[in-house]
């Protein structure tokens, strides 16, 4: 890895320690979902959080010589409700423990407004209205996160199955404006984009062309499955070839891209296999070298 290349890593799950043991320094970083490090008994519980101590210890053992990125799923920034302060406190504490390079959340809704956590969970990421009201809402919470964490905040584009009609702006325009107003960067999930091109008929080139290249700090790669005529971001396979093609074509254009992450779910570890994950890591390093070469030529 050269200084001007993005780092290469994996989304952490219970199967990843064995991968890290096998691949050693090939994996530059792990991306940790803080919400998977505790059990949450809900806002009304006097003793709300129970930490998964064994999982935390195992993670700690495997990040001694690696960088760590935080990737949250619980704060649900677009939900029309205040941030959950105690949950945010836990995220902050996890950041202090593992020193995240940066922290990301999603541009989708995981909580139902008007109810409290955990009973407010919508059970999946739902699409958001792309308008000024949502932008103000998300921007305000991004600022809160920036202040609380003291680190860079990113937002990820999500897989959706029904785009909300009559948007006031496109999704790339939403990300661009959020960056202009708050400095919040983009975690560009190319596999989510791939799923949206299949399910919604979106044009990847149009989407990627509209993104301000400066805002992309991280790229996610993954593979998915078909479910009754819908393509899902199930993190169940190696990255499909069209996604690699976009990665090679577009990633070198993002001057601030700092990390490339492969995501898979532990329940598919057997299907993908250690060799499959190793191949993904190798291809990601090839991509990172390619980006580094192009950056050196420009410099």
């Amino acid at each position, binding site marked *: 890895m050269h200084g001007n290349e993005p780092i290469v890593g994996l989304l952490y799950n219970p199967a990843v320690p064995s991968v890290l043991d096998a691949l050693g320094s090939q994996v530059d970083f792990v991306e940790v979902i803080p919400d998977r490090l505790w*059990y*949450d008994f809900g806002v009304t519980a006097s003793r709300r*959080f129970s930490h998964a101590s064994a999982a935390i210890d195992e993670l700690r053992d495997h990040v001694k010589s690696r960088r760590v990125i935080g990737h949250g799923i619980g704060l649900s920034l677009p*939900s*029309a409700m205040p941030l959950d302060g105690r949950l945010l406190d836990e995220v902050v504490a996890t950041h202090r423990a593992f020193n995240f390079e940066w922290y990301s959340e999603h541009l989708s809704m995981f909580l139902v407004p008007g109810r409290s956590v955990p009973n407010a*969970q919508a059970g999946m990421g739902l699409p958001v209205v792309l308008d000024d009201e949502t932008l103000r809402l998300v921007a305000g919470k991004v600022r809160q996160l920036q202040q609380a964490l003291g680190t860079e905040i990113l937002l990820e584009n999500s897989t959706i199955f029904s785009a909300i009609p009559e948007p006031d702006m496109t999704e790339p325009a939403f990300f661009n404006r959020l960056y202009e107003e708050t400095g919040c960067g983009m975690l560009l999930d190319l596999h989510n984009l791939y799923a949206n091109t299949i399910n919604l008929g979106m044009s990847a080139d149009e989407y990627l062309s509209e993104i301000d290249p400066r805002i992309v700090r991280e790229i996610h790669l993954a593979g998915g499955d078909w479910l009754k005529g*819908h393509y899902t971001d199930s993190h169940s396979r190696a990255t499909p070839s069209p996604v690699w093609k976009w990665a090679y074509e577009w990633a070198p254009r993002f001057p601030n891209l700092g990390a490339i992450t492969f995501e898979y779910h532990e329940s598919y570890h057997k299907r993908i296999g250690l060799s499959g994950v190793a191949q993904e890591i190798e291809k990601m390093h090839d991509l990172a070298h390619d980006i580094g070469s192009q950056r050196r030529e420009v410099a």
Partner: protein
Amino acid sequence: MLVHFQKALADLTASPALCREVRENPDVLRELYQLSEKEWRRLVSITASKGMEANCMLYRANRLAPVALNLPETCEAIRDDLNRLISAYWDSEPITDVHFLVEADRFCCFLEHQEELSPQAREALAREHAVVSAKLAATRQNATQVTVKSPTE
């Protein structure tokens, strides 16, 4: 109101029956939620879209996950009746609990009151409920306000 729009979207995703009702009579949305005309049009359009079917399927799959993960033998034992039973459980407990063990425990309690369970299913349920209860008790015992410690602490 954005709050009502988001609530309606989540309710629709959780309920194929509500989706069917809205498709037949879109004014139902106005009766249940405070929506602007634009919000109402958006929801009517989404409800009619092909993607709403995927939203509903994934919602059910996600809600099933804690049960399938923690009660595999019970699910196998009630296999032919799982769909009906889980739907009845969700009707009685419409709100998901994000704590997988709490959700699995609640389903166990629901099943225990179902008289038509076979002896084989009841046996699997008793065995797996005991494991879930023990794990849940352990997480409750550890629950604290103490936050994650840094590696140096």
